[in-house]
C-alpha cells in the first residue's frame, strides 16, 4: 500500500508498453522515487553508457506518498545518466503530473531505447500507448500542452514535455510538467529528446490507497499543523516563496555575482521576493499575481507572476501577457545577480522562456554569466554573438539569448552547451562555475562554507538540493552553525545528504524539512506503506542511496579529483561582506567527510561500508 506495485516499461525502439510488478524487495530497501528509481537505473544501465545513446534509460518515478493527502505529496523524479554531467541524475518536480501518474495506477515508467520517429506516451489508467508526435515536434512545451489537451478533449489530462531546446540538444534541457514545474537539472530533458520522446500525457481515475487510512489521516493532519505553525513553511514561503532568501543571502555575503567574481549584488533588493510584491510604477500592479501550491501542498511557495505589458520583452507579444510560473530564488539569482541584471520583469520573462522551451534557468544563467565574463575579456566577440553585446548587467543580452537557447539557434547553440563545455571551447575552463559539469546555484561557498562541501560531493554535480546546509548555517534549522567556519561541516553535510535522500524517495517535498525532520516523516510513511518504517530504517536507507549513487559515478569514471570546486572559489577571496578575505575551506572538510562516510582517502566506499549498507 502507498505503492501501486506496478511499473510501466516502454520500449521506444520497438514501440511496446508493458506492465510489470514493482520489485517489492527493492521497494523495501529504497522506498520509491529517487531511491527506487536509482536502484532500477543502477541495475539496468551500464554506468559507462553515453547519456544520449539508446542504451541509456529514462525513469519517471513517484514515491509511495505521491498522490496522498500527506502535505506536499506531489513529487516525482526523473532518473537517468545526465546529459550535462555524465553522472547519475535525479531531477525532482512537483505540480500535478506525478500524482496523476499514480492515480492511473503506476509507480514508475521506464523508457528504454529510442523511437525511430518522434512519439508521445498517452496513458489512461491501465491503457498506455505510443502515438506519433509529428504534430508537436518542434513546438514549445506550452504549445504541446495546449495541443494535447485539445486533441484528447480532456482538460484533466496532465502533461510532462520537452520543448525545442530538448529536441535541439541543449545540454541542460528540462522536462516541464503542468506548464511551469520542472525536473530541471542535469539535462534530463536532453536525454528525453535523444530518445525522440516529446511528452507524456496521463489521466488517472483509479486513486491511491494506504495501509492504515485512519492512522494515516490522523498523522498527516498533525504534521500539516506543524508546517502551518512554522515561521518558514507557514509564513515566509507562502508570502515570498524561495525568494524570501534574496536579501538575506546578499546580506551574509554569499550571493555569487558576475560569475562569482563578487559575493554581493547591488541590485539584490530590486529582484527580491519583496520587490515582487511592490506595485510597478508603470501600471500600479505587482509582478507577483498569487502564490500557488503543487498537488497536496499546504505550504504553497510557488510564484505566479506577470510581466508588465509595456515591458520591452513582451511589447506587442500578447502571448506573454498572461500569468505563469514566476521567479524562484535560484532563477532570480542565476538570471539576475550572476549576470548582474536587476530588471525584475526581464528576469521573469527569461524564466517564462525557460519554462516555455524547457531548459534549466540555473545552468542557463550561470552559462550566460561565464559568457559575459569571456565577452568582457574580449575572448567572445560580437562576431560570435551575432552583434549582441554580452556585458554584465545587460537585460537585453539575457532575454535575447534566452530566446535563442530556447530554439537552439545562433549563439544559443553555443550557450546551450553549458558553461563547462563553453569555457573549454574558448580556452578558459576555470571560468566555468561548475562541479562534475553542473553549475552551482545561488549560495557562495566562501560565505557559506558547508555549501562548498555540498557542491563538491553532490552525486549529480553541484546542487543545493542534495544537502541544504543553508538551513543550519543561515536560518538556524535544525540548529544554528557558523557559516564562516569549516569545523563540523563534514558531519553536517553527511547528515543532510542522507536525510534528503530519504525524503526524496518518499514522494514528499524537501521544503517540508524547514519544519520537519525524519522524525516527522517516518510515521507518515509507516501508516501508508507495507512493513514497519522506523527512523533508523529511513536514515540507513538514505545513506544506502547516497553510496549507491556514488558507486554508479565511480564506475562511470569519476574519481576523488572530481570532488572539487571551481578554482575561483578556492583561491579568490570574497572582497566584501561578512566573508571578506575568505575562500572555500574545502581541503579542511573533504578528508573528514570521506572518513565519516566510511570511504578510503580516494573517496571510494570501503568493503565494510558497502556491506553495512547492504550494497556488497
Amino acid at each position, binding site marked *: 500500500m502507498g505503492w501501486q506495485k506496478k511499473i510501466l516499461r516502454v520500449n521506444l525502439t520497438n514501440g511496446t508498453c508493458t506492465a510489470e510488478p514493482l520489485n517489492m524487495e527493492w521497494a523495501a530497501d529504497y522506498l520509491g522515487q529517487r531511491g527506487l528509481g536509482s536502484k532500477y537505473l543502477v541495475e539496468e544501465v551500464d554506468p559507462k553508457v553515453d547519456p544520449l545513446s539508446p542504451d541509456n534509460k529514462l525513469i519517471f518515478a513517484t514515491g509511495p506518498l505521491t498522490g496522498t493527502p500527506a502535505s506536499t505529496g506531489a513529487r516525482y523524479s526523473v532518473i537517468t545518466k545526465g546529459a550535462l554531467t555524465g553522472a547519475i541524475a535525479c531531477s525532482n518536480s512537483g505540480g500535478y503530473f506525478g500524482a496523476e501518474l499514480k*492515480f492511473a495506477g503506476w509507480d514508475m515508467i521506464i523508457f528504454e531505447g529510442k523511437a525511430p520517429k518522434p512519439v508521445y506516451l498517452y496513458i489512461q489508467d491501465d491503457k498506455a500507448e505510443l502515438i506519433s508526435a509529428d504534430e508537436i515536434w518542434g513546438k514549445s512545451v506550452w504549445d504541446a500542452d495546449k495541443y494535447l489537451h485539445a486533441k484528447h478533449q480532456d482538460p484533466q489530462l496532465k502533461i510532462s514535455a520537452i520543448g525545442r531546446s530538448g529536441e535541439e540538444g541543449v545540454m541542460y534541457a528540462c522536462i516541464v510538467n503542468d506548464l511551469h514545474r520542472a525536473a530541471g537539472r542535469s539535462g534530463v530533458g536532453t536525454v528525453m529528446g535523444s530518445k525522440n520522446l516529446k511528452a507524456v500525457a496521463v489521466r488517472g*481515475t483509479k*486513486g*491511491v490507497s494506504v495501509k492504515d487510512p485512519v492512522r494515516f489521516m490522523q498523522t498527516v493532519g498533525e504534521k500539516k499543523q506543524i508546517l502551518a505553525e512554522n515561521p518558514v513553511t507557514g509564513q515566509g514561503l507562502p508570502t515570498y516563496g524561495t525568494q524570501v532568501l534574496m536579501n538575506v543571502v546578499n546580506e551574509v555575503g554569499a550571493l555569487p555575482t558576475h560569475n562569482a567574481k563578487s559575493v554581493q549584488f547591488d541590485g539584490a533588493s530590486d529582484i527580491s521576493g519583496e520587490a515582487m510584491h511592490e506595485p510597478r510604477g508603470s501600471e500600479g500592479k505587482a509582478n507577483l499575481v498569487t502564490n*500557488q*501550491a503543487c498537488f497536496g501542498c499546504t505550504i504553497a511557495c510557488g510564484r505566479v507572476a*506577470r510581466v508588465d505589458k509595456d515591458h520591452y520583452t513582451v511589447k506587442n507579444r500578447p502571448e506573454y501577457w498572461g500569468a505563469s510560473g514566476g521567479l524562484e530564488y535560484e532563477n532570480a539569482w542565476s538570471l539576475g545577480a550572476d549576470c548582474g541584471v536587476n530588471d525584475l520583469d526581464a528576469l521573469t520573462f527569461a524564466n517564462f522562456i525557460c519554462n516555455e522551451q524547457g531548459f534549466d534557468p540555473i545552468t542557463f544563467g550561470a552559462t550566460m554569466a561565464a559568457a559575459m565574463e569571456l565577452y568582457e575579456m574580449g575572448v567572445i566577440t560580437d562576431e560570435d554573438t551575432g552583434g549582441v553585446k554580452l556585458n554584465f548587467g545587460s537585460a537585453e543580452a539575457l532575454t535575447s539569448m534566452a530566446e535563442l537557447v530556447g530554439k537552439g539557434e545562433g549563439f544559443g547553440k553555443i550557450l546551450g552547451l553549458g558553461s563547462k563545455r563553453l569555457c573549454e571551447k574558448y580556452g578558459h575552463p576555470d571560468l566555468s562555475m561548475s562541479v562534475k559539469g553542473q553549475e552551482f546555484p545561488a549560495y557562495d561557498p566562501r560565505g557559506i562554507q558547508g555549501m562548498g562541501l555540498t557542491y563538491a560531493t553532490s552525486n549529480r554535480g553541484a546542487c543545493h538540493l542534495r544537502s541544504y546546509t543553508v538551513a543550519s548555517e543561515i536560518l538556524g534549522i535544525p540548529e544554528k552553525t557558523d557559516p564562516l567556519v569549516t569545523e563540523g561541516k563534514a558531519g553536517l553535510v553527511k547528515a543532510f545528504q542522507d536525510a534528503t535522500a530519504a525524503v526524496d524517495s518518499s514522494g514528499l517535498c524537501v521544503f517540508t524539512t524547514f519544519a520537519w525532520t525524519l522524525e516527522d516523516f517516518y510515521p507518515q510513511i509507516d501508516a501508508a506503506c507495507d512493513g514497519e518504517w522506523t527512523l533508523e530504517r529511513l536514515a540507513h536507507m538514505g545513506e544506502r542511496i547516497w553510496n549507491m549513487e556514488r558507486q554508479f559515478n565511480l564506475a562511470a569514471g569519476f574519481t576523488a579529483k572530481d570532488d572539487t570546486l571551481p578554482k575561483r572559489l578556492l583561491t579568490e577571496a570574497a572582497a566584501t561582506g561578512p566573508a571578506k578575505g575568505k575562500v572555500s575551506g574545502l581541503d579542511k572538510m573533504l578528508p573528514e567527510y570521506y572518513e565519516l562516510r566510511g570511504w578510503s582517502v580516494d573517496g571510494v566506499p570501503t568493503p565494510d561500508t558497502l556491506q553495512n549498507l547492504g550494497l556488497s
Partner: protein
Amino acid sequence: MQRSLYISPDKCTGCLQCEMACSYEHEGNFNPAKSRIKVFSFHTEGRFVPYTCTQCAEAWCKSACPTEAITLDVATGAKMVNDGLCVGCKVCTIACPFGTINYNTATGKVTKCDLCGGDPACAKACPTQAITYIDAEGTGYDKMRSWAARTDNQSAAQA
C-alpha cells in the same frame, strides 16, 4: 442553524486537499477524479476556484428526477441521491444549471455533494479556509465586515 459551504476563491492555492478529502470520504481512497468538489485553474489569470453543489432550496436536479431518487436531508439541507432509486438516466445532470451533479460510470448512478452528513470533509481539509462551512444566513458577513471597516473613516483617520 442551517449551514452552507462557502467558497472564497481568492484564498485557494490549488492544492486539491479538498478533492482528496472528498474522495476519501465517499470512495474510501484518494482519488480526485471521483471528487464531488472540483478546483478549477485559470492559469493565465493566476486563479484557482473550488466549485461544488450549493444545495439549491428548490433544486433543479430534484425536480427533474423521474424516480424521486433525489431527496432533501432536512437536518443539513443537502440534496441526497438515493442509489437504490437512481436509474442513472442523467436527466438531473442536464437540469442542474451549475453542472455539480455528475454521472459515475463505475456505479451507474449520479453523485453530488451531500455535505458529508453535516461535517464536510473538504472544508476540514482546506489549509487556507478557502472552503468553509458556515451559517447559511450569514455567508456574506465576512465581506460585510471588511467593507464595514473601510466605511469607518473616523477610526482609520485616527489610526
